[in-house]
């Protein structure tokens, strides 16, 4: 990917919060890019730093006394170094955000229309009347029925799906070039989730904006994202195109995620490709243990205490994101040898447990 196409470049970003118990290193030296008109998915569990990274893009962690290092280049401007006044001109204008819980993101005492009008007038010198017309147009555009009447409703008069549509309408009022959506569908039912995801896809097609979608749901990123970054304990551990990530995942944490989700087809990921044969393993293979504390993260590879393939040296060496052999676009931070890792995945994808995969891959080498 050439740098000219990149709308957003995050370079060596670290965000740390001082707390009574110690310094929480929520994001620890991550870099990624968002291509114009494309969708980047950031996947991770709670506490992986995926939300903090995006809030920082909009300067929303500044007030919490966060210690921010690195650069966030939006085209040629650094959002980290920018003054609060300048940043306010970008936020909600060129870069907009949609949050997980639309009920707490909308002000309960103002009508939806008033909040949409304010979103435009904060950035543009337009009359209230023109702004209101724009608001009605946007509400209709995101699929709210009878927008001219519903614009004067309060948020509590909207259903969950409609509130999220209203949030998206608000984010789109100023035609942003980048939309950051943080778990936009987590609080919604599957049928409504499908509607919102389809809406975001349509808006991207028609308006050409780039999207960063942050989620814990691998199904959502598989459907939405062009590129995917997998985060664990404040680091990016794997980065690839969606297709590559699901076909040839390289990091044991990504494997663990894929093997811990049940699929709608009744098999786990590992046995999916075997569905023509008789193999139907229905066991989920969870990742052992739980995500680490970010105040004192594990040494070396942060995933080593939970990784079934970890070797003693992995507690000391910090893995770097490196391109995977023959795949320059695909990077992964793992200390296992490339070839060994591929043998392991070959076995895991056909339904082996980690222990069986280790035994099998070891035999092959011998």
């Amino acid at each position, binding site marked *: 990917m050439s740098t000219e196409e990149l709308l957003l470049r995050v370079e060596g970003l670290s965000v740390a919060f001082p707390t009574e118990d110690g310094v929480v290193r929520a994001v620890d030296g991550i870099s990624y890019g968002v291509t114009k008109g494309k969708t980047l998915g950031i996947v991770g*569990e*709670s506490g992986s730093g995926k939300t903090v990274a995006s809030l920082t893009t909009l300067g929303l962690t500044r007030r919490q006394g966060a210690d921010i290092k690195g650069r966030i280049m939006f085209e040629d401007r650094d959002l980290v170094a920018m003054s609060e006044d300048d940043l306010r001109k970008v936020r909600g204008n060129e870069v907009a955000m949609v949050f997980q819980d639309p009920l707490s993101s909308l002000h309960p005492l103002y009508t939806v229309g008033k909040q949409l009008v304010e979103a435009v007038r904060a950035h543009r010198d337009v009359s209230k009347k023109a702004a209101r017309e724009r608001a009605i147009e946007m509400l209709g555009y995101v699929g709210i029925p009878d927008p001219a009447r519903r614009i004067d409703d309060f948020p509590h008069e909207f*259903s*969950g*799906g*409609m509130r999220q549509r209203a949030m998206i309408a608000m984010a789109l009022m100023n035609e942003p070039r980048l939309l950051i959506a943080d778990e936009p569908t987590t609080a919604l*039912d*599957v*049928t*409504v*989730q*499908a*509607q919102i*995801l*389809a809406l975001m*896809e349509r808006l991207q097609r028609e308006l050409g904006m780039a999207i960063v979608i942050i989620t*814990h*749901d*691998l*199904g*959502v990123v*598989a*459907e939405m994202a062009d590129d995917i970054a997998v985060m664990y304990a404040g680091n990016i551990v794997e980065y690839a195109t*969606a*297709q590559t*990530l*699901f*076909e040839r995942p390289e990091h044991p944490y990504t494997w*663990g*995620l*894929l*093997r*811990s*989700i*049940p*699929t*709608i*087809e*009744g098999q*786990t*990921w590992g046995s*999916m490709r075997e569905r023509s044969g008789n193999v139907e393993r*229905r*066991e*989920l*293979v*969870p*990742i*052992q243990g*739980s*995500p680490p504390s970010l105040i004192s993260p594990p040494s070396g590879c942060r995933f080593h205490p939970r990784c079934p393939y970890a070797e003693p040296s992995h507690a000391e060496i910090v893995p770097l994101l490196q391109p995977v052999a023959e795949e320059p676009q695909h990077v992964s931070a793992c200390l296992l040898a490339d070839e060994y890792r591929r043998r392991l995945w070959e076995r895991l994808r056909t339904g082996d447990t980690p222990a069986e995969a280790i035994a099998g891959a070891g035999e092959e080498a011998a």
Partner: protein
Amino acid sequence: MSEATGEPLIEVRDLVKHFPITRGIIFQKKIGAVKAVDGISFDVHRGETLGIVGESGCGKSTTARLLVKLLEATSGEIRFDGRDLTQLRGAELKQMRREMQMIFQDPYSSLNPRKTVGSIIGEPFSIHNMLPGKDERKKRVQDLMEMVGLNPEHYNRYPHEFSGGQRQRIGVARALALDPKLLIADEPVSALDVSIQAQVLNLLRDLQSRLGLTVVFIAHDLSVVRHMCDRVAVMYLGKIVEFGPGGALYEFPRHPYTGALLSAVPVVDPTRHGRERKLLTGDVPSPVNPPSACRFHTRCPKATEICSTDEPQLVPQDSGTTVACHHLLTHEEALELGVRGWG
């Protein structure tokens, strides 16, 4: 999956729960009712896992609470082991409650923060005056902790010292303390992270086969239900619209609502990126004033006039499920929705 015997542990007949809506503070007047559960009938077989799925507001959690009598049914019958629960009172009810336990969604609010884990898990013994000896009780609680994968040495710790997944294990241990026959799990993993979810699901399945439990599993996540359940009931606005073995229901759904639900689930398969989805439009109507006859007709792509005048009854189909619909999905239509289909 479990060895279900086909013999019912629970028989539910025409179960109804209406929550009254009242106006006035002193002179309360009933002005309507939320028809949360509106006439459902089903059996739960001994040793099976029955899944209940549906969107929020479809009545699945109300059904769960009715089954353990945390809510009083408006009308209808729930027979547990041959006895009608809705008629039981006092000591008999308390006795019956030992047989049925519940696991809740939120592992943070369902544990008392001021009690140690040992006393939380031991609480059922106090309630039912069992194991009065202190050492005996401690021993039993520690056995339970070990069984659900907690360290028995953490007996004296408080809930805040545990992670979300471990707290859910505490909830499971508490539910199993009295050796119940029936376990009702209401969204037991939806508050947990992906990697932790799988740990708890595996634990539940393992315990079920070891202890021969009957489980009613309620979740909005259709993939999780597919993984866990022998049979599945799909609810919409207080009614069961389709019911049957998991395989048949997921591979060849016959009710348009089941089809729409399955089609809406995001698939972990990037080759299907950007596929055309059949989307349901609109939201679930209000259960205060549900649509007439077939309640799904306002959102159904196949609805015709008969759907708003005649209520469809649950009829068994050759494809394996029992469906309440005038216009069943054909095999071609089901395939178009992206399900696996037959053959």
